[in-house]
Each structure stands twice: as C-alpha cells, then as structure tokens.
C-alpha cells in the first residue's frame, strides 16, 4: 500500500523490496508490525461493529432489534474479538514489534522467523474465529463459564476455544521474542537503567504472556475435550467443579488485563516526557512499578469470583491482594503528573491522548477499587458497573494509549505526518463520546442492571439512551483517524527523522528506517529522556 509513490524517497524498509511475497515472507520486524497493524485494525472494526449492534439493541428496554440468542452471540463475540484479537495483541504486536529492536539498538528481534510465525498463528486463530462467527457464532460470554460452555451451549464453542488457543501461542512467541531481545540484543551502553520505559512495560507484559497464556491454553483445551469426550472435570453432575474452571480462567485472564494496560502505560511514559520536554519523574519507580504490576497481577484472580461460591477466607485473601496490585498503578499516575511539573508542555495529538489516558484510567482504576472491596462487589458484580469499570480502563485507557502511540510514532513508521488539526479534533471526539457512553453505565450498574441482558426493566432506559448516543459519537471518533491516517500516507507532509525532538534510539534513525534499522550499531552514552540535550525542531517550537 505505502510502496506506491515513494520511488524518490531514500531507501527504507518499505521500498527495500516489492511484491506481496516480500511482505508475506518478510522477517523484518517493522514489516511484521505493519502486517499486524492491518489485521488488528480489521478485528477492531469487527468488534466495534458488534458493539454498535449491542448498543442499538439496548436503546429500548424490549428485546426488539435482534433475537435473544443473537444478542448473546453479539456480546460474546464482541468480548472475544476485542480482547483476544484486538486489545491483547494491539500495542505489543504493532508498536512493540516495530519499536523494541529499535529502542534497544538492534537490527531485528532475536528470532525474526519466529516473529513471522507469531503473525501467522495470529492469522490462523483469527481466521478460525471469523469462521466461527460466520458459521453461527458463540454464545458463552467471553468468559466461557462451565457448565454452560461444556454441556449446554450448542454453538461453536469448540471453534472459538481453538481459535483462542492458537492465538495464545502467537502471544507466547511474541512475549518470548521480546524478553530474549531485551536481555540479549541491547546495544553497547544500553544498560537496564537507560532503557526507555516502554521497554520496561513491554518486558513486564511479556512476563505475563509467558507465564499466564499457557494456562488459558490448557484450560480451553480441557473445555474442548470436555465437550468432545465428556471428561467430567468441570461437570457437576459427574463430581467435577465448575468453579475450578473459573479459577483457571481468571488465573490467566486477570493478568491478561495487565497485558492490555501495561503497554499503554509504556506508551504514555514515552509521550509525556516528550511533550513536556522533561525526563520522567522517578524513572526507577515507574520502571519497577511495571514489573510489580506484572508479578502482583498473578495474585488476585479470584476477585472475579467473590460471589461464585469460593470460601470466605479465600475471598478475604484475594481482596486484600487486589489492593496491593493497585499500588504500582497509583505510583505511575502520580509520577506522570509530577513529570509535567515545570515542563514545557505542548498539546499535540499524542499528548492529548496521553492526558485522556491518565484521566480515564484513573477513573477506571478507582472503580476497580470499588470492585475489589468485598462489600460493594457483592452488589455490583455482574452489573453494568463492571462493564463501565473495564471499558474505562480498556477503551478509555488502553485504546487511548494505543491511538496516542500510533500518532506519536506514525512519522517514524510511515515517514509522514498526520494532519495535526484532525488529530486533535478526533482525540476530543473520542474523549467526549467515551464518557457519554460509559459514565451512565456506572449509575446503571449501581441501580442494579445486570450485564448480558438482552431486555431490561424500563426504568433503566434513560441512561441506556445516553450510552447509545455516546457510542455513535465514539464511532465517529474512531473512523476519523482511520480516514486521515490513510490519507496521510500519500498526502501527509514528509516527517523529518525526529519531528518531535524526542529521545530514544528509534528517533536517531531515518524515517522510515532502513531494513536493518541502524547503519552501525549505536553506542549509548546518555540516560533515557535526556531532553536537556535534544534540540527541539523549529516547527514544533512554533506549533506549541
């Protein structure tokens, strides 16, 4: 796509080779990142399409737009597509793939061919998921709770389970590649304490990929086998315990929420210093808090099961541990805020997204504290309060971080600038639309509206109408960048090598970079975020 009008440009990874084969068989981490970018965007719109249908159905209390079974499939596939095929791979597989080798000063990831294999596994899983959707879909909820999924649902549970199973190996291999690259491929002088914070958060994310994903893989495999052979492990009529499934599922899926948020936190930790022209306040604390989140994240899973019939004492333990994992997030929020103190702040699009991230993540995180609180969770569990909580973090937080990062590194990836005014406009639209969609859901939840409801008592309608209205604004906010980013590929103004005056090895290369990133291996002699010594380009100075 971008190979068209670039013949006059310098040689770079985009025009180094031509033809579809040079893309499908590439081992260049940057090209693979682009392959991911395209496929992930596709799945985002699939998931978003389901979201719009959900919101339309909920416009009225009666179940009138779609059938009950269809509605159940809609939210299931919305959740599964968004979580497994969009948000989990989003930042790691696109920005991570593109940036990790460049940030450490390497020519490629440690295992380039395995990296390509990851993408193919992702595509295989994705195609299976699409097949599953097109041949009738699944209706178990994204959580696959047994015994409904094993013994009662007669939809394509097996296909969906296998799709996520395959996709899991894509995640594992990506994580493995990142950890090994960060350990083994750092350029001379790139010590751990000089690494950009994005690397720290990618590293932490990869730990979860490596240690968590296998557990969901085996769990879904057991569900599939249970359906095929009637093992009885999760079947209460044969002495199995359905709650065991929940333990195994959340052992992965809670840490997985940190897979979704940590990379976005890493992006924000790059953007804020750059547009404040300051080093990060408390670099060490921010770096360590990423690792702490990854490790503590494994200790809290049963907070999704407070009313599932677990023991009272287990509930107490998991509640208190949930508060421990909230601490490192708090540390990050405070440090980002402090970074802006006495900075020189510009409101470019990435910065707007980053500020939006802090605000919405804080709200989402604080409501997470409500949920971790036993007395409150009993009331709001499985209501729209939970829906609002996680959309605040995943859409308001992670997705905003992703868009911010995409804008921030767009000039590096494509060599062209996106139109700034449109960027700021759509960031504002996303922010407003988002709050209108999901804030009413907190109130709905506390009022007692259960989630996964196809029809609901009429007294909940007013708030649902707000929510649906917000979702349509949100849709505009997401379609806009789609349009102008594509537009900029051809018409955007050429970006220099370092249009933001940003720190980090990736900005010392040309835009777009050459196939092997660096002509010669760089030697790092400066700290991360050394903004004191990086000149600010003239245009940025004037633009504010």
């Amino acid at each position, binding site marked *: 796509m971008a190979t068209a009008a670039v013949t006059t440009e310098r040689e770079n990874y985009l025009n180094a080779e031509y033809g579809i084969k040079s893309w499908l068989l590439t081992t260049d981490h940057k090209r693979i990142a682009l392959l991911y970018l395209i496929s992930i965007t596709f799945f985002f719109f699939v998931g978003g399409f389901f979201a719009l249908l959900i919101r339309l159905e909920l416009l009225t209390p009666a179940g009138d737009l779609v059938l009950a079974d269809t509605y159940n499939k809609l939210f299931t596939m919305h959740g599964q597509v968004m979580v497994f095929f969009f948000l989990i791979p989003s930042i790691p597989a696109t920005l991570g793939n593109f940036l990790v080798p460049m940030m450490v000063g390497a020519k490629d990831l440690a295992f380039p061919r395995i990296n390509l294999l990851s993408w193919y596994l992702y595509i295989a899983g994705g195609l299976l998921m699409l097949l599953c959707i097109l041949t009738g879909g699944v209706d178990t909820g994204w959580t696959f709770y047994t015994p409904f999924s094993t013994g009662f649902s007669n939809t394509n549970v097996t296909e969906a389970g296998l799709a996520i199973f395959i996709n899991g190996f894509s995640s594992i291999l990506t994580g493995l590649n990142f950890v090994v690259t960060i350990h083994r491929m750092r350029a001379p002088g790139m010590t751990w304490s000089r690494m950009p914070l994005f690397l720290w958060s990618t590293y932490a994310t990869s730990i979860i990929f490596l240690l968590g994903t296998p557990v969901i893989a085996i769990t879904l495999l057991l569900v599939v086998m249970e359906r095929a052979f009637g093992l009885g492990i999760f079947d209460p009529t044969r002495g199995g315990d359905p709650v065991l499934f929940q333990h195994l599922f959340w052992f992965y899926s809670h840490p997985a929420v940190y897979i979704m948020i940590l990379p976005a936190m890493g992006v924000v930790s790059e953007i804020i210093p750059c547009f404040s022209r300051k080093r990060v306040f408390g670099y060490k604390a921010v770096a360590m808090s990423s690792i702490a989140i990854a490790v503590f994240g494994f200790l809290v899973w049963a907070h999704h099961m407070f009313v599932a019939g677990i023991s009272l004492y287990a509930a107490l333990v998991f509640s208190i541990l949930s508060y421990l994992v909230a601490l490192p997030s708090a540390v990050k929020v405070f440090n980002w805020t*402090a970074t*802006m103190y006495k900075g020189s702040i510009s409101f470019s699009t990435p910065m707007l997204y980053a500020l939006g991230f*802090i605000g919405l993540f804080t709200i989402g995180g604080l409501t997470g504290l409500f949920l971790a609180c036993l007395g409150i969770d009993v009331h709001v569990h499985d209501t729209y309060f939970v829906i609002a909580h996680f959309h605040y973090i995943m859409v308001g937080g992670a997705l905003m971080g992703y868009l911010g990062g995409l804008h921030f590194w767009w000039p590096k990836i494509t060599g062209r600038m996106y139109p700034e005014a449109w960027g700021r406009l759509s960031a504002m639209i996303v922010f407003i639309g988002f709050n209108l969609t999901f804030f009413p859901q907190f109130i709905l939840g506390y009022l007692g509206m259960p989630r996964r409801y196809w029809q609901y008592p009429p007294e909940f309608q007013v708030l649902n109408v707000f929510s649906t209205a917000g979702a349509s604004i949100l849709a505009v906010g997401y379609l806009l960048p789609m349009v102008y980013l594509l537009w900029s590929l051809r018409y955007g103004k050429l970006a220099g090598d370092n249009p933001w005056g940003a720190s980090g090895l990736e900005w010392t290369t040309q835009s777009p970079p050459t196939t092997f990133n660096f002509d010669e291996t760089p030697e790092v002699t400066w700290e991360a975020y050394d903004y004191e010594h990086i000149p600010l380009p003239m245009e940025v100075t004037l633009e504010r």
Partner: protein
Amino acid sequence: MFENLPLWPARASTMAGNVDLLYIFLVLLSLFTCVAIFITIVVFVTKYRRRLDGREAQQIEGSVLLEIAWTVVPLGIFMLIFAWGAIIYFQERVLPRDVAEIYVVGKQWMWKLQHVEGQREINQLHVPANRDIKLIMTSQDVIHSFFVPEFRIKQDVVPGRYTTLWFRATQPGTYHLFCSQYCGTQHSGMVGQIVVMEPAQYQAWLTTGGAFGSLAANGASLFAQLGCPTCHQSEMQGRGPILSEVYGNPVRLEDGQTVVADDNYIRESIVNPSAKIVSGFKPIMPVFQGLLNEEQLNELVAYVKSLNPPPAGSVNSPGIAAAETKPQQP
C-alpha cells in the same frame, strides 16, 4: 427529568444502608482523588504550557520521599477500604442464628422457590418483613445468580451443591429479582419479584397458597417411598446411622476427620454417600444422584433436618416467627 434518575436503588434490607454508606464513602474518596489529580494536571499544563519566550523545561530527577509518601498513603487508605468491605462481607456471609429457611432452585430460565410450609412459587418470592431469611440455593443445570438490588445481595447458584444467602427485608414492597450470571438464551428473562409483606399479611398469604403439605412432610413420604428406612431406622438396628440427631451436629468420619452436618453435608450424603463415610459404617448406601430432582432433594434434606429441630426458642419457619415478631420501624 432528574428526579426520575436515582443514584441507587431503594434500600429495602438491613444490609442496604451499610453497603450504601461504604459506597458513598468510596464515591467521595474517588471524587476527591480525581479532582485533586485533574486539577493538578490542569494547573501544570496551563502554567507550564510551551511558550514562545524560549523558556526551557526544568529537569527534575524525582524524589524518594515523594515516592514513599504516595505509596504509603494510598496503602493506608486501601487497607481501610478493604477492612470496611470485609466487615460487610462477613455480615453477608455469616448467617444469623435464628433464620427462616426457603429453598431456591434455579433452572434455565426460572426461579423455583419452596417454602418450608409447602408453598411453591415460580419467579416470585413472598417473604415477611423484619425476619431473617436464609435461602438455600442450588441449580438444576448451569450456574445462575440470585440478585436482589434493593437488598444489595447476590450469590451464584451452583449446580451440584448448596450455596446460601441471607437477608432481612425492612420495607414491604415489591422488588426486582434478577438472574445475574449469564445462563443462556433467556438469561435476561430469568427475572422475578420479591414481595415483602407485613408479617400478618404474610401469615394470611401462607394460608391461601395451594397447600402441598410442608416440605418436611413431603420429604417424609419420599423417604419412605425410596426405601430409606430399610437402613435408617429410628433404633440402632439398621445398617445406616440414626438420622434423628445428625443435622447441626459434628459427625465423626471413617477417616478420622470431623465435620459439622450442615445442609451441604446432608445433601452430599444423599447424592453421593461415598464422599464422607460416617465412622463405624460401611459404604453401602446407594447413590441417589440422578434419581432425584432438585426439589425432591430439598424435601429430603428438609425432612432430615426436621428430625433434629433446633433448640427451643428458635423457630425455623418464617410463618410462625413472623406472626410473633412485632413489625419494627425501618
């Protein structure tokens, strides 16, 4: 318009006020935190906005003191929230002594409710106000969840075992009963009503309801019908233990452990006798799993429990007690 937009559901149980108090505290705390952070950010971004006067950013390393402060202070606040929430959870999970019992069976997609007196209801539950009610719940198929927003209570209903829930309604009225755990096609149709009545009214309702015989009486005939007395006789001559003093007492098991015979124990002893063998007996009791539906099981359990009635003074039927309790001012 806004008077129609409440922020919380009616407070209709003794728990509701406690939960709401904590909730309001958390909302205020969050509001305070958010406002503090957002104002700080707004001040910073306006005050230190990039200017054309060429003023540069001032590089600051960080501050260990600050890091410690903003780790320890939130930790303290978090522990407070945890403790407060844990106290409420304890109140919700630990049953009061003198409770009236009602059996609940969830199935795709309806709620079946059995009163000890024998009344059966579907998707509607009548209870007296100002009386502690314990729900003994199970499911016939998948996991459901019993949720009454006005009472601020919720508990998953898991197939294969009993889970329990208790509440004390304070306000007569009609409230939502939701199934809040996704359970298939008509999950959103698995809704009903909780009708809270003044005790006297409730007493009257009990007599009008179609009498099927009390739960325990039905259990007794089932007990005979299934041939249980061949082994469980009232004297020590049967091959099985005497059941008249089992419920609520510790039972010594063959493997040396001691367990208290609660509802789940009785249920398990019938469905799956081999799980816990009573000391001194052989594991000969047949497995009744699959032969009994959940309602019949509930009747048997109620019968076995009725053989060992709780000590004088405490009563197990909402009806009797409700007639005696004076309605309290909520």
